[in-house]
């Protein structure tokens, strides 16, 4: 069984705020849900499936939020793969819809990211923790390790990584809600403080409060709604780890999730008109583009140079909302925003300055966790009908 053509993304909502002081976590999830339902032209009473990750409050998966929102659902899922969770959840919602388990799936992501990245619990039963925590692993240095090895093996440079941020900032200038709206240059990135060699501050994504929601529906329901039809045609997921000590941090889980999604969709990288690529750090984008087949392995640095990711300028417009690097990375989980901007592009509802012409096929990819230890990886391919 395939999900191709079995589910549509009917509603999207990105919370406009980036700093939030006056809302509860449950309220923020519910407001995102309300926004996406209104966008779709549906009501809370239409929802029969709820999907969330561990940013939702409560220790019982989605049950607390299901109760808070007054939902009665037939299907729920609370997969946690960090920032990539929401791409997994869209695929899982499509699978559930294809199997007849629900027909209107609500996915929410929300929270308060600004207090900082959540540090792993020291006393947990996670088997790797005692062998890693003493060494001071934090999000940025675990991505920096991958960047350093990529530079060593393939000759990738800081200037090339900086181009990813430059492209994101070119897009963010047109997004009134973007956390960072200032256009930056390669030199600006290189001049920003070194956080963890070789990553400068501007190689890192923003840290914001906020969230978003997505509504996935059956074809029958999608065709009754007044919104442009965005059909899911392919999905792939595959986490990657340390492989028992045979560590190779030159590639990501996208080497598996990408081909699965492309095969299901029946399209190839050259068919993709717009790509949302998870941009926790600039290196994440370079490695993911290689692993999804947009360029040869090791040539991601060259691929992103000279504005090749800038809408209207380069061959592969990416993250036209400004991405995690400039726009939004709510609660340290940017996956929901990757889906949202891809849907905007397919609907023709992106900002006119960044809207891709004839955008009929788009890809969204999520990378959650850390590139050099363990991460989730999920690829979605969508088509405008």
């Amino acid at each position, binding site marked *: 069984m395939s999900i191709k053509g079995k589910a549509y993304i009917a509603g999207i909502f990105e919370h406009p705020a980036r700093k939030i002081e006056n809302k509860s976590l449950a309220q923020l999830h519910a407001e995102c849900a309300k926004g996406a339902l209104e966008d779709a032209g549906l009501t809370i009473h239409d929802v029969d499936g709820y999907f969330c990750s561990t940013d939702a409050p409560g220790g019982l998966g989605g049950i607390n939020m299901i109760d808070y929102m007054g939902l009665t659902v037939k299907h729920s899922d609370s997969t946690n793969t960090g920032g990539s969770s929401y791409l997994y959840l869209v695929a899982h919602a499509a699978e559930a819809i294809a199997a007849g388990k629900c027909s209107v799936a609500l996915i929410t992501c929300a929270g308060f990211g600004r207090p900082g990245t959540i540090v792993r619990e*020291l*006393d*947990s*039963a996670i*088997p*790797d*923790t*005692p*062998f*890693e*925590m*003493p*060494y*001071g*692993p*934090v999000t*940025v*240095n*675990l991505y*920096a*390790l*991958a*960047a*350093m*090895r990529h530079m*060593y093996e393939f000759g990738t440079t800081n200037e090339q990584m900086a181009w990813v941020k430059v492209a994101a900032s070119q897009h963010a200038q047109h997004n009134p809600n973007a956390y960072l709206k200032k256009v930056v240059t390669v030199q600006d990135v290189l001049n920003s*403080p*070194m*956080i*963890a*060699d*070789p*990553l400068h*501050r501007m190689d890192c994504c923003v840290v914001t409060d906020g969230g978003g929601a997505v509504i996935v529906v059956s074809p029958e329901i999608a065709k009754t709604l007044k919104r442009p039809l965005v059909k899911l045609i392919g999905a792939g997921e595959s986490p990657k780890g*340390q*492989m*028992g*000590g*045979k*560590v190779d*941090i030159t590639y990501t889980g996208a080497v598996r999730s990408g081909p699965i999604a492309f095969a299901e969709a029946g399209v190839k990288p050259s068919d993709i008109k717009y790509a949302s690529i998870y941009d926790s750090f600039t290196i994440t984008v370079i490695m993911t583009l290689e692993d999804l087949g947009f360029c040869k392995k090791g040539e991601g640095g060259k691929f992103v140079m000279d504005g090749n990711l800038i809408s209207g300028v380069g061959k592969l417009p990416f993250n036209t909302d400004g991405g995690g690097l400039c726009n939004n990375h709510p609660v340290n989980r940017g996956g929901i925003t990757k889906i949202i901007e891809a849907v905007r592009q397919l609907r023709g509802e992106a900002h006119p300055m960044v809207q891709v012409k004839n955008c009929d096929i788009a890809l969204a990819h999520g990378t959650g966790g850390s590139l*050099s*230890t363990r991460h989730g990886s999920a690829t979605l391919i969508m088509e405008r009908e």
Partner: protein
Amino acid sequence: MSTPYQDRKIPAPKLNYGDETYFDAATQGKLLVKYCKDCGQYHHYPRALCPFCFSDKTEWKESKGTGTVYSYSVTRASGPKPYAIAYVTLDEGVTMLTNIVDCDLDTIRVGQKVVVTFKPSEDGPAIPMFKLA
């Protein structure tokens, strides 16, 4: 530029059942690696079941303690002192997360030969780290 190594406070790792052997050995100045008697391969981090063949016939072996820097990052803006997180590939073939210590951190390079050393944790076992060979 020069970034001298400085000792930093290392919280004692909270161990899971079976981890004590590794950390007790570290406190005695030995680096252990798990080895599978069925498939003949080393693995890291240590597991009770081999991650390659799922055999439960795994045993501890003492590593020579020598290896090569696979990747590293001098972390300059996370906490009060800079430190070098790294992946070191042991001569036994497995790659482990670690720190590079006792040197000018700005002189670390991928491919450098390193040798194991041990640093104390706070009220806990010693932690295997590496210095330039």
